[in-house]
């Protein structure tokens, strides 16, 4: 494997003392998959350190090893220079390592406050949990993060963004020496990201080490001092951020040149395919009316929690709605029936791939063909061979990286999982494609391909409705941008007039949203 720029040795950057945490020659296998091969990492006190790499590069595996969830096959983890062994998450926590996992891991039945303090609840006499103190401390944490979440409500039903915020609150409440954040911003909007960064900076300034993982390279440049690049489970380089340009970084991650990020073609809009009128769900969204034409890409923009996901879910039929109508090609869809929505040609790529998009235990094949199971059957019968062929068609096109398509989809990295969700829906050849956060947690190369795909689909006459919290993506891709504020459509901005400012202005509402 050769790299255009050659490999920089793991030379310590500015800090001079020994790293707080280091990994030396760590390898980790899952079955025959080598997730890590001789990985290296040096994390110094007082620095924010970025870990970047494509999907499946092994970033989350490093996180889980640091967290004590996985143990390395070979190699060692050094804490303050001496080798340690974490036999479980409790060991790592005790060593002062706090981790925000890529996927929120909350206890849905417990209150938000308990989720934050589980195992460390403040106690009073008789080792009794002090609920008042717990609530107070939770509120303080949310105050620092600039959000308001009721600490007493159960975690069930929190939006992904709020779940992520609870995770962050939990991690910072540990007052850890090392804060590891695996794609914490994937679900957050700009405002929340800013607050998170402010908190991370102050932790860093008070001497903590922060390990930050993100596919949004601008965030890496905003927050971090140094960046370690990984590819295929191997260490590539570790440098001060200031020494690198975005292009260089991308080249190291991908091992090749990457071009046009948002390759949207100008396409002729055709007939109206999807019409949504007066859609209302009490307390969530109200009187939502819009249409999407064939060949058009329409984006639903807005702050996290504005209700965009709920709107598209209702339109697809997974959620019920109280009033309004959804029409595809002129025919009204029955309420709450995804089956007929699919028959009418709608596809929905949901925002939460683990819960909504995939069945983690089933094979890639089964996941990729589940939407086409009727169409793939002959005389009502299915054969494994046909399913596999059909699955391969799209997983190959999207370059899903897997040892075998008969492996459970849980063995894939986050980005590759997202590709399987896309494969599953693109295979239905929809007339209307709804994508909710289609590039969340996807690496830069794949992201470009997803964009190209969406664009191609639009060219072929598919009506595309995209929910995205990434403004550059919205601006780059959409022909038209619908802005949602607190469950209502507040603006319809054509591509030509759209700027970050105009969208944000609409999204925060005229009076400004109290956050």
């Amino acid at each position, binding site marked *: 494997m050769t790299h255009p720029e050659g490999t920089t040795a793991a030379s310590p950057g500015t800090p001079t003392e020994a790293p707080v945490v280091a990994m030396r020659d760590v390898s980790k296998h899952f079955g025959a998959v080598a997730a890590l091969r001789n990985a290296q990492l040096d994390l110094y006190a007082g620095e924010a350190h970025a870990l970047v790499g494509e999907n499946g590069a092994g970033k989350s595996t490093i996180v889980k090893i640091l967290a004590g969830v996985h143990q390395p096959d070979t190699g060692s983890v050094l804490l303050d220079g001496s080798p340690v062994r974490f036999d479980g998450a*409790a060991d790592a926590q005790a060593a002062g390592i706090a*981790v925000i996992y890529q996927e929120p891991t909350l*206890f849905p039945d417990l209150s938000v406050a308990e989720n934050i303090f589980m195992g460390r609840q403040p106690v009073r006499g008789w080792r009794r949990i002090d609920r008042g103190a717990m609530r107070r401390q939770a509120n303080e944490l949310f105050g620092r993060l600039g959000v*308001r979440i009721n600490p007493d409500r159960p975690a069930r039903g929190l939006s992904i963004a709020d779940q992520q915020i609870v995770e962050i609150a939990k991690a910072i409440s540990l007052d850890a020496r090392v804060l590891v954040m695996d794609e914490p911003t994937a679900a957050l909007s700009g405002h929340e990201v800013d607050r998170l960064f402010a908190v991370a900076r102050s932790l860093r300034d008070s001497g903590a080490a922060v390990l930050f993982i993100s596919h949004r390279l601008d965030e890496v440049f905003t927050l971090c001092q140094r960046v370690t690049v990984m590819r295929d489970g191997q260490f590539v380089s570790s440098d001060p951020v200031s020494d690198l340009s975005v292009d260089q970084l991308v080249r190291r991650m991908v091992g090749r040149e990457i071009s046009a990020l948002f390759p949207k073609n100008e396409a002729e809009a055709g007939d109206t395919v999807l019409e949504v009128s007066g859609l209302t769900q009490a307390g969530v969204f109200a009187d939502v009316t819009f249409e999407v034409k064939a060949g058009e890409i329409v984006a639903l923009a807005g702050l996290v929690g504005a209700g965009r996901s709920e709107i598209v879910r209702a339109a697809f039929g997974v959620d019920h709605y109280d009033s309004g109508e959804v029409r595809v090609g002129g025919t009204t869809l029955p309420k709450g029936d995804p089956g007929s929505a699919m028959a009418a040609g709608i596809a929905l790529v949901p925002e939460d791939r683990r819960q909504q998009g995939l069945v983690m235990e089933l094979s890639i094949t089964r996941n990729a063909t589940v939407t086409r199971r009727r169409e793939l059957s002959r005389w009502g019968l299915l054969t494994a061979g046909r399913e596999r062929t059909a699955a391969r068609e799209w997983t190959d096109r999207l370059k899903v990286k897997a040892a075998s398509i008969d492996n459970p989809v849980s063995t894939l990295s986050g980005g590759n999982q997202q590709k399987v969700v896309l494969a599953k829906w693109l295979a239905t050849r929809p007339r209307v494609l709804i994508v909710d956060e289609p590039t969340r947690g996807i690496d830069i190369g794949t992201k470009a391909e997803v964009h190209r795909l969406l664009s191609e689909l639009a060219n072929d006459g598919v009506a595309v409705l995209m929910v995205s919290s990434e403004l550059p993506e919205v601006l780059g891709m959409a022909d038209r941008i619908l802005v949602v504020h607190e469950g209502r459509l507040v603006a319809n901005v054509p591509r030509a007039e759209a700027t970050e400012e105009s969208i944000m202005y609409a999204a925060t509402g005229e009076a400004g949203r109290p956050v």
Partner: protein
Amino acid sequence: MALMRFRELGILLALVLLVAATTISNPRFLSTQSVRDLLLGAAILVILAVGQSLVIITRNVDLSVGSILGLTAFGTGALLVAQPNLPIVVVILVGMAFGAVLGTVNGGLVTLARVPALVVTLGTLYAFRGFDYAWAGGRQINAADMPRPFLDFGTQRILGIPILAFIALAVVLIVGWCLGNLRSGREFYAIGSDPAAAVLYGIPSGRRIMVAFVVNGALAGLAGVLYAARFGTLDATAGSGMELQVVAAAVVGGVAIFGGSGTVYGAAIGAVLLTTIGSSLAVLRVSPFWQQAVVGMLIVGAIALDRLLSARVARRLQGSGPRGA
């Protein structure tokens, strides 16, 4: 927290309604003797339901409680036949220890071999009962074979309230307090709520689940001792088929069958409700052919009612959410 307590209120309401309706039709239903009988009758089921809730909260289940009860009840009888002079406290402790050992078998299989509890305990339901049969054979231990003080213990009262009821109440309060107020108690809920997340949190799931099974076994053992004291006639069939009743009591009491939520207070009320249904059907002179059908209807009705109430609470919670529109 206050909102969550609402679930127990619903079931308490059902209990009050049932008692009120029965009393209206036959005022003697609330006589002291009758209330005492209710408490006495419920005590054993309450203890079992508390233990079962502990296990269910961790997203497991123990179907072998009926068999554990049978085995310990017979063991208690056999022990007392051999050692009639043992103090009652010792008998209770031995019974609980025996139950705990059986619980350890369940817990060990569930945590060490990592296999689904429903399957394991369905297996030990048969296995423990088979062991009981093999041990007891056709032998029956009768009241005359057991020491009088032990039998009296089954019906004795303090302040007019049966001792058995006090024991059950103590079990409910202690377990309930621990689950609600100790860090380790809350971890039971965490494990049941999302076992995978519990691992990521560094919660010692295996140990906690083990504790749940062992405590449940010990409580089933305690119930076995009380069973022996109360009924005085013991053979290998004691407690057969009780497992479904116990699970029903917990579920009726609002303990979610998939773990993570519910309280032992609710389960205890559920157990009292089920026992009261039995007693009030007897008092109301419902046709014997209808009795079981009515019990079934009431169980289904109670679960449905609980669901409707909790849906109300959930809606209210949504409305009061800080992000609510």
